[in-house]
């Protein structure tokens, strides 16, 4: 060692460091290569999604049945996953083999239908009859390509606080409550009675009244020629939400923000438009309110908020294996399995007659038969065409409603403002 001297020592140190770096960098590649060379036709499928879609048990089942397929689950944050998919689609590489896409983003992606596998080319036409008609249409592109096979739907019901209703002298049994509000005007009247009696607000936000009403209308913001049509469905929904705000029954909170979570605990609202996936959120936010919540049907009968689709990006490396896996995932056995483990409602109406769905009682919600209730609301919804700019137009109109709630805009001027903002969004699409 003495003979090496300072220079020699430095050389040895540099060589050691270089070896470490080289071995560290190449570690992952070696692993990947060896797993791909396991056997002839060995395939690895990467699945991008968010939250819990019940995939852990399903993955084990599929891998056992198909030994040459390895499934890698990649769960991320809801918005981040969609943005990542968008960026990878632009880049044209690095896409996952299968990507879950939520209802809020499906419009954006179905306009880029050429970047996805068209299920109709892969024998997917047989699935159409199995699905709720409006669900099938949501992921259908304007030139007839089907880029998504639906997995779950939200449905929509109204969750209400039985203890607060009792204090206000309102009935608490869910059948009676559902009869109280068969129309939205009845709903607002019940709200007025509640607020007069207790001095507290009834519903959490005006925008949460706008969206369910809009979803029930035959026509939405855009007609099939992508022209803005504000006077039909949007006007009905807008007037309903403004009426609710003027009646003083809205607590003016924004969903999923800390203020809204606080609102649960402080009894700031007594009802909540509630899709199937919201149940988990209520349980998590207000666990001490177990047994105080129940579910009634939504005024107008039908509704949906949220739901996801399985898509296969065309730039993926194992497109056929991915399509096979997705087709397996949407089979009735798997969808019931998911319902049992995480409570996501399937989007195939035939499954609503399955005993697992029919007889399911939700403990937290006062043993309400949530399977039945959400299923019937999902079935009763008519398909509505959603234009390309549906998302931004909806945000623009919601902002106008928020301004009325904040007291910055008078209700009389609100509709003109909403039309102006919606036209701005529609016009920006023409440029």
């Amino acid at each position, binding site marked *: 060692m003495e003979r090496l001297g300072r220079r020699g020592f430095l050389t040895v140190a540099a060589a050691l460091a270089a070896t470490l770096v080289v071995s560290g960098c190449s570690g992952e590649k070696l692993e990947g290569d060896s797993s791909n060379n396991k056997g002839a036709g060995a395939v690895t499928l990467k699945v991008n999604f968010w939250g819990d879609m019940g995939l852990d048990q399903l993955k084990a089942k599929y891998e056992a049945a198909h030994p040459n397929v390895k499934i890698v689950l990649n769960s991320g944050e809801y918005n981040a996953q969609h943005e990542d998919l968008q960026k990878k689609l632009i880049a044209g590489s690095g896409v996952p083999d299968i990507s879950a896409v939520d209802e809020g983003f499906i419009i954006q992606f179905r306009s880029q239908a050429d970047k996805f596998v068209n299920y109709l080319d892969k024998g997917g036409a047989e699935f159409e009859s199995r699905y709720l008609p409006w669900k099938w249409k949501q992921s259908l592109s304007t030139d007839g390509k089907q880029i998504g096979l639906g997995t779950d739907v939200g449905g929509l019901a109204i969750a209400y606080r039985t203890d607060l209703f009792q204090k206000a002298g309102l009935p608490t049994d869910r059948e009676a409550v559902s009869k109280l509000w068969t129309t939205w005007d009845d709903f607002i009247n019940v709200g007025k009675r509640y607020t007069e009696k207790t001095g507290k607000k009834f519903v959490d936000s005006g925008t949460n009244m706008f969206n369910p009403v809009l979803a029930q209308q035959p026509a939405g913001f855009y007609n099939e020629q992508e022209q803005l049509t504000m006077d039909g469905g949007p006007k009905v929904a807008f007037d309903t939400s403004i009426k609710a705000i003027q009646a003083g029954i809205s607590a003016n909170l924004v969903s999923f*923000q*800390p203020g809204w979570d606080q*609102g649960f605990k402080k009894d700031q609202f007594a009802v909540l438009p509630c899709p199937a996936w919201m149940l988990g959120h209520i349980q998590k936010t207000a666990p001490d309110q177990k047994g105080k919540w129940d579910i009634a049907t939504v005024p107008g009968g039908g509704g949906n908020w949220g739901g996801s689709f399985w898509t296969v990006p065309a730039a993926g490396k194992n497109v056929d294996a991915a399509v096979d896996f997705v087709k397996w995932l949407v089979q009735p056995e798997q969808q019931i399995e998911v319902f049992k483990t995480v409570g996501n409602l399937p989007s195939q109406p035939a499954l609503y007659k399955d005993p697992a769905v029919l007889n399911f009682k939700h403990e937290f919600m006062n043993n309400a038969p949530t399977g039945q209730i959400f299923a019937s609301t999902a079935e009763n919804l008519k398909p509505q065409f959603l234009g390309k700019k549906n998302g931004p137009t909806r*945000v623009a109109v919601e902002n106008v409603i*928020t301004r009325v709630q*904040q007291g910055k805009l008078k209700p009389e001027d609100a509709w003109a403002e909403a039309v102006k903002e919606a036209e701005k*969004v529609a016009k920006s699409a023409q440029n």
Partner: protein
Amino acid sequence: MSLTQIRPVAQHQSPPPTPGRAKLWLHRFDNKTIPYVLISPFFILFAVFGIFPIIFNGVVAARNWRLDDPDRTGWAGAGNFTRLLQDEDFWNALGNTFGIFILSSVPQLLMALILASLLNRKLRATTWWRIGVLLPYLTPVVASTLVFSVFFNRDSGMANWFLSLVGFGQETPLDWRAEKWSSWIAIATMVNWKWIGYNALLYLSAMQTIPKDVYEAAAVDGAGPWRQLWQITVPMIQPVVVFTVILSTIGGLQLFNEPMMFDENPQSASGGSDHQFQTIAQLIYKVGWKDLDMGYAAAMSWALFLIILIVAGVNTLLTKRIGGDR
């Protein structure tokens, strides 16, 4: 060895042997080319990740490129830029950005100056004070903005609780996000909280190079501390002031994190229900990734670049004038 053993050097010494050609070439390479090779990694990375995107962005700005309408491509020339001039959302966002920028930079730099002059005196535990003042700068932006976002909540936020202590807003608590003035103050508070310490330390290090005898002479002439601050300290640390003004201009005009997290629905990137605190960077993000209009967003980002250049230049000219004869 003794002095008598030193021998005189022979007069004729053979010249040193000339090195071979290969060695000469290697020597020249070592001297002239290796320096460039050593600094090239930075420039290569900068060219790939810095210059190329800027140029590509410029090309995209001159094209129509919409993600939701793949058929509508082609050259737009100056079309995106003329659209910019008539877009009221753009001018609104520009106004918001300038308003928040002035509200955040001016008090921030003034308070940093005062804080630095306070720290410049003889204090106990100076290191603790200096670290404490720098702590806000060390917090991740998203984390601190989220906490401030809750702080400014309408129903349960501490800001409204403080206001209620002085009897303001008992029945209808102030909705900080609703108005321009309140949302600007809230966002400016977040930015100021974060950057005052950093700027104060920069000023402090510059102040410590000022010789004490200048202050003593001024004190003899009867100048109070306030006068000393403005007539002596500030002109003598003028280079650092210019530096901080440029940095805060560039940062302030690019505000993105704070308005995004302050929004009640961050994913809409709408900067409030009436775009009351939407900054240009936020608008670029919204147009590019939410409205999926990439060409227009690229044009907007080039406009922002030019605006920052102009404003930073103006600011530099103004602050250079505060320096006396150094």
